[in-house]
């Protein structure tokens, strides 16, 4: 009894390891921020305090950008617009009513006369941010990659146009003034600290993991059940909240501002800060802001021109922008991931840190089930890749799909995995699954690997598997334990904390299998699992696969060109040629099937072989 309790205790500690580690990192960064603020508060002048306050506000905005762009890999220009919206909303909500009547004469009644305190206004702005985030994110995130970036740019222009044109509410391009200046050093530092903790923790949440996985490899992510649109939307909304909070503070910090303050240049400054530090981590955002603010403060002294070391300096326009641009180019050129973007602090993940215990719970035997293709066809512009295939696979079996190159094997597998929409026919797992959707299929028990490996190179080996485990384990701690179990199954537990990119080829293949198994699938589809492996690795793989099949009684379907592997491992073989099933049976049956020989070696060889066999039989 005591032993069981001891074994369970590390897994049940108060927080999953990923959150413990993230929490420690966040607290460390917050401590540095608070310490810096305290030193400036005690020893710095009013000007220095303003600089640090400004830095804390920018940090909040940059973290908002990092939460979205850092995790999703989509550069956003729109966060400047969100900050603008936050600033104007706060301005209107906190402005003294008497001043409002003169400054904003045509303000609609429902917006007028709130005179809220800063924090009350902030609360309203945050609610507004969630609404705006959902409204803008839903359409924008239908786009991917560079198109999505440009769409955020369109959004920036839309918001700018609205701010300039909505004269009754914003005074148009004229300065909006009269906002009480209540945000000081400690308010800004406090809110920035919250943003730091949020950004650091967000990476490890289900949404953060899913967003990063989708940014690494879209199809791979869908194959492990990641609903990338929802995950991205979550990152977008959280980022919007942080950006609008920064805008709210900016309003009360500046007191007067105009739409131009939240347009392209502001967006550029935010991006430059994030890129210099490194966009992939909250540590990057933090250091980026610190470094660029320091540089800006130094450069600003020269902007007005004057004498310096006996040299006459001319007045320079936009010197700050120029220096930021050069800093950004240098960083991208010399260190593309930014000064600190490659990793978080990972204080608890140093060598000697506590390892995550593998879940002792044995994987369940799956109940009997059936994956069935019913009159499945797929045409590509005139080419029929798969032609009216009807097949069924049971759990507790291993089936090999073989056939010449271009026979339609991978297309069939893609349809079975929900990755490709059938032109005709249906796929069902127990009950029929609605329209082809890779992530829904993955969640309903069909896991797969790819011919060209699709692991998430920038994530750690453990994270790769946790993404999948999270889809079936609602609790992160249990997901981590389950992921460790699958890694040990595949002999990868030693590399758990390495980035997947560092694994050797064979290890990456095994990682992909571990990841698929973490989904607790009823069916495992493998697309050429032994491709590129040597004989030893292949033998290892065969033993692992047959062990997994007996342990869990799942249905394994694999495409393979290595005939020895297929004949040894599979108890049933389906042969496909020109998109049609030409043979289906035990290895022995298939090997002697004349149609199969014809497909592989040509019809003449087939006839010769049949003839020679007939003669042999006759002689016998």
């Amino acid at each position, binding site marked *: 009894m005591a032993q069981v309790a001891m074994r369970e205790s590390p897994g049940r500690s108060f927080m999953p390891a990923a959150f413990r580690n993230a929490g420690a990192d966040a607290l460390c960064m917050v401590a540095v921020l608070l310490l810096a603020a305290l030193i400036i508060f005690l020893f710095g002048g009013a000007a220095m305090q303003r600089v640090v306050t400004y830095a804390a506000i920018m940090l909040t905005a940059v973290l908002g950008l990092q939460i979205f762009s850092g995790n999703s*890999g989509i*550069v956003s220009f729109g966060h400047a617009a969100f900050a603008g919206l936050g600033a104007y909303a706060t301005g209107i909500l906190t402005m003294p009513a008497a001043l409002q009547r003169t400054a904003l004469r045509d303000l609609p009644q429902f917006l007028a006369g709130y005179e809220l305190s800063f924090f009350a206004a902030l609360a309203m702005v945050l609610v507004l941010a969630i609404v705006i985030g959902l409204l803008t994110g839903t*359409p*924008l995130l*239908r*786009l*991917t*990659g*560079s*198109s999505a*970036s*440009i*769409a955020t*740019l*369109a*959004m920036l*222009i*839309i918001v700018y*146009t*609205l701010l*300039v*044109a909505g*004269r009754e509410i914003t005074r148009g391009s004229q300065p909006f003034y009269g906002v009480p200046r209540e945000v000081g050093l400690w308010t800004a530092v406090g809110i920035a600290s919250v943003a730091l903790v949020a950004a650091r923790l967000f990476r490890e949440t289900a949404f953060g993991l899913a967003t990063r996985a989708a940014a690494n490899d879209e199809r791979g992510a869908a194959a492990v059940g990641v609903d990338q649109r929802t995950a991205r939307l979550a990152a977008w909304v959280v980022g919007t909240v942080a950006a609008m909070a920064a805008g709210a503070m900016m309003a009360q910090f500046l007191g007067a501002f105009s739409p131009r303050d939240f347009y*392209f240049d502001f967006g*550029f400054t935010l*991006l*430059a800060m994030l*890129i210099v530090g490194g*966009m992939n981590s909250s540590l990057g955002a933090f250091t980026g802001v610190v470094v660029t603010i320091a540089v800006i403060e130094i450069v600003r002294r020269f902007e007005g021109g004057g004498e310096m070391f006996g040299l006459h300096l*001319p007045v*320079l*326009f*936009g*010197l700050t*922008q*120029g220096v*930021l*641009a*050069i800093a*950004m*180019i240098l960083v*991208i*050129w010399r260190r*593309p991931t930014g000064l600190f973007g490659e990793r978080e602090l990972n204080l608890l993940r140093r060598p000697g840190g506590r390892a995550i215990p593998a879940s002792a719970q044995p994987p369940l035997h799956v109940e009997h089930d059936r994956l069935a293709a019913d009159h499945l066809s797929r045409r590509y512009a005139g080419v029929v890749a798969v032609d009216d295939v009807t097949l069924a696979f049971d759990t507790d079996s291993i089936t090999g799909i073989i056939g010449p190159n271009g026979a339609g094997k*991978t297309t069939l597998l*893609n349809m079975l995995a929900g990755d490709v929409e059938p032109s005709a026919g249906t796929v069902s797992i127990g009950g029929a699954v609605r329209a082809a959707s890779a992530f829904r299929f993955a969640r309903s028990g069909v896991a797969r690997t*790819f*011919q*060209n490996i699709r692991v998430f190179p920038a994530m750690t080996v453990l994270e790769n598997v946790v993404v999948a485990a999270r889809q079936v384990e609602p609790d992160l701690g249990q997901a981590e334990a389950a992921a460790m179990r699958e890694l040990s199954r595949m002999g990868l537990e030693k590399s758990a904390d390495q980035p997947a990119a560092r694994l050797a080829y064979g290890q990456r293949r095994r990682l992909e299998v571990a990841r698929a198994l973490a989904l607790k699938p009823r069916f495992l589809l493998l*697309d050429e699992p032994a491709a590129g492996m040597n004989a030893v690795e292949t033998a290892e793989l065969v033993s692992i696969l047959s062990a997994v099949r007996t342990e869990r009684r799942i249905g394994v379907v694999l495409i393979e060109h290595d005939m020895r592997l297929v004949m040894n491992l599979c108890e049933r073989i389906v042969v496909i040629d020109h998109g049609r099933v030409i043979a289906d049976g035990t290895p022995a049956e298939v090997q002697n099937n004349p149609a199969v020989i014809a497909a592989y070696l040509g019809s003449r060889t087939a006839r010769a072989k049949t003839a020679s066999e007939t003669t042999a039989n006759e002689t016998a």
Partner: protein
Amino acid sequence: MIAQQIINAVSLGGVYALLALGLAIVFSIVGLINFAHGELMTLSGYALLACLVFGLPFPLAVLVAVSCGALAAVAMERVAFRPMRGASVTSLLLTSFAVSSLLKVVFQNGISARPQAVAMPGWMTGAFSFGDFTIGVGPSISIVVSALALIALELFLRRTVTGTAMRAAAEDFNVVRLMGIPASRIIATAFLLSGLLAGLAAMLWVAQRASVDPLMGFTPVLKAFIAAVVGGLGSLPGAVAGGFLLGIIEVLLQATLPGAVAPYRDAIVLSGVIAVLLIRPQGLIPAVRAQRS
């Protein structure tokens, strides 16, 4: 009046189409969204100004200015983007963003932050009439030039080896390199063409406004980005379609919107564009790309 508006719409659409096409050519081959495209336009504008100030005859000045745009594009690729070859799409995009900012600062400090007047020949601001219709010379030239440029580019892409290689590279660059065609030549040609188109667009833009300023390229190129996305990022016919669509919608809204709503024009146009993308996320004419399983 209606005829005049249609001419204006098509001429603005033509400028957007040239710019979007330049962006699309580079994007389809290198995967770079070139934020500094607007600065190529500005640079051509300043080159025209300089030529006219030095007393070059107008046609020669235009020729020099357009070539300056093209050469600047090639130089930009050589200096800023070639060291980054193989970098991620995001890094390329951010580099061009930084280059754009840097060039703006250079223009502001090296020339002037204020707009400089360009002395356009008088005949360009005239108009000719067909019975009741009065049609401006500027917009008409703009349409003719856009149309000629599009036809010439189409011929180049269809009839020459480099053009064919470029169309192939847009679908699958690696295979084109395996065919023994040097990558650098393809990329340099792509930038050259995009610079030529930016230069032409700059001439048309300046012809209608008769002034140059450091931010001249900023707004039209922003619109061109959006046109390229609406058309289908990386698709050349898509870029042209998107450019014309955006220009036409803009001018028509300008003409028809009541005064109180007119300031919201850009917001309305862009929201409409995003609505188009909701229905067709790949754009009007999606780009074809090689896919491997």
